[in-house]
């Protein structure tokens, strides 16, 4: 795998490699809103990390407290939690609709695309709408087998209010 280099000139979002990455991010968003967690987890590589940090400025996730810091093992357990019917927060989870937009390619190679985006999620539960705004970063491994085999290797969800009190959630960002 070649190491993607930071861009000196912007790569347009119409670049076919970026288009593949954007489509994967949108596919992921749709699966999360549908709570199709098994299919969602299948979009992640075995070595992938899914993280929702508390400190929006840190890159040292292992050395910091996070809301989510999942490797493959934790992600599998989380999927089980969300679907097995024991977790009362997941059983009665809010319905969510999310918009992911404002894509900015940060690094692009034939093997990997690093993409920033903005996510606005509205969660509705029992008469209340909660707003979750986040800056997303996806690192996506492009597969030689084509877009259907592309995988997420890192996702970082930086909430605008990650250091403040947020609702306890029965869904995933």
């Amino acid at each position, binding site marked *: 795998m070649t190491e993607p280099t930071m861009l000196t000139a912007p790569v347009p979002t119409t670049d076919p490699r970026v288009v593949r990455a954007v489509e994967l991010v949108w596919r992921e968003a749709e699966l999360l809103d549908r709570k199709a967690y098994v299919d969602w987890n299948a979009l992640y590589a075995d070595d992938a990390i899914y993280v*929702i940090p*508390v*400190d929006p400025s840190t890159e040292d996730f*292992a*050395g*910091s*407290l*996070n*809301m*989510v*810091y999942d490797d493959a093992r*934790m992600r599998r*357990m*989380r999927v*089980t*939690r969300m679907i*097995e019917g*024991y*977790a*009362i*927060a*997941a059983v*009665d989870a809010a319905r969510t609709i999310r918009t992911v937009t404002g894509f900015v390619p940060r690094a692009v190679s034939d093997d990997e695309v690093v993409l920033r985006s903005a996510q606005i999620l509205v969660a509705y539960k*029992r008469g*209340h709408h909660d707003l979750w705004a986040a800056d997303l970063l996806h690192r996506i491994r492009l597969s030689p087998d084509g877009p259907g085999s592309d995988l997420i290797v890192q996702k970082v969800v930086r909430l605008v209010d990650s*250091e*403040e*009190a*947020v*609702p*306890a*959630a*029965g869904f*995933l*960002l």
Partner: protein
Amino acid sequence: MTETTSNPAGLVAGDRVAGRLYTDPEIFEQEMTRIFERTWVWVAHESELPRPGTFKSTHVGRQPVIVTRDRKGVLHTMLNRCRHRGASICEKPQGEANGFTCPYHAWSYGLDGKLRGIPYPDGYEGVVDKSELSLRKLRTESYGSMVFATFDADAVPLEEFLGDVRLWIDRFMAQGGGYPVKVLGRHRFKFRGNWKIQLENTTDGYHFPIVHRSWMASVDAETADMMSFMTDPTAVTHDLGNGHSVMQMVPEHSDLDADDGTEPLQGRFRHLVEELSQTLDAAQVRKLIRAMHGTGFNLNLFPNVSMSAAFFRVLRPISVDETWIEHVAIGPDGPPEVEAVNRERLRVHEHFQGPFGFGTPDDAEGWDRVQRGAQADPGMPIMVNRGLAREKPSAEGWPTSHVTDETGMRAAYGKWKELMSDD
């Protein structure tokens, strides 16, 4: 039981409280003044204020405050409010500063709250005596690095308020494994419910295997077994007086310093044992690993903090039906090689705690449901009578029952009733 808000103390009997305690805005208003502006309220752990000039901003009840360590090392808790026109003087959650300057007209205050400077002071000649316009101060005292403040100048000393709790604070801090304890980070979340629902929960062993079945199903067998206290007769809750209680879920870890060496270390930490053993001796490693899940008890302090196994749970009442919670992760404050312990403790904390943990969201769902259900005939009682018939004094004289019983809730509501009574 009377059911009027003019005499809220009448809404609490020994084994039950009126549901209205969760839903009546007038009762909430009275609680803010009679409880949160009168008794000792937890504001900080000393590790959050490690050096002169460090500060944190927080709340006592609904009132914003700043906690500081001044140049002489003395801790202060002061209202976060300029004496001039009332602007907040600090909006940073924590940091280091030489003092605080109001953004509106630049009145400046020292770390001890003294008013240092007023720009263009000629307009105040013959009008203002700066020595009378320090930031409004609360009494601040600490025990075992736990810092509390009170609005009441006549409150009993903190150590008297804590009483027998002090022994349990000492035991709690033993989880540093030979090092002091420090704050590692904090989760913050909110729920739509009254603060007392949360206050009850940290002394509620009864809900654990039901609400936390999802977490129990996800952990290793040794950890699940450690938390299987439902039928363990040695797992008990003590009423420690003044509304405080301690719930011993894992009694063999209540006093971490008492170790006969027979208990095997949990297999899940084997990699950590190997890493630590490169620099620490076997006894030090054992101490740190045995304390990975914290102490075996939740120490519930009335009204706003629980020292809960391996973290602090701090509640902040927002309104009658909204409460914000902090789950503060802690760990040993040791040399760099001990940071491996803290990385692992962060992972253990993340697994259960916080808005996306495997435990907290299920707690919050349960609490939301209590608030919603309690709207139905708020005069109906909330029952806190579990274990009443088997509650007996311990050798120390503490009213004691099984860990799944509601002894701790009865203790808290007893103090609530005392503070809410007309005097």
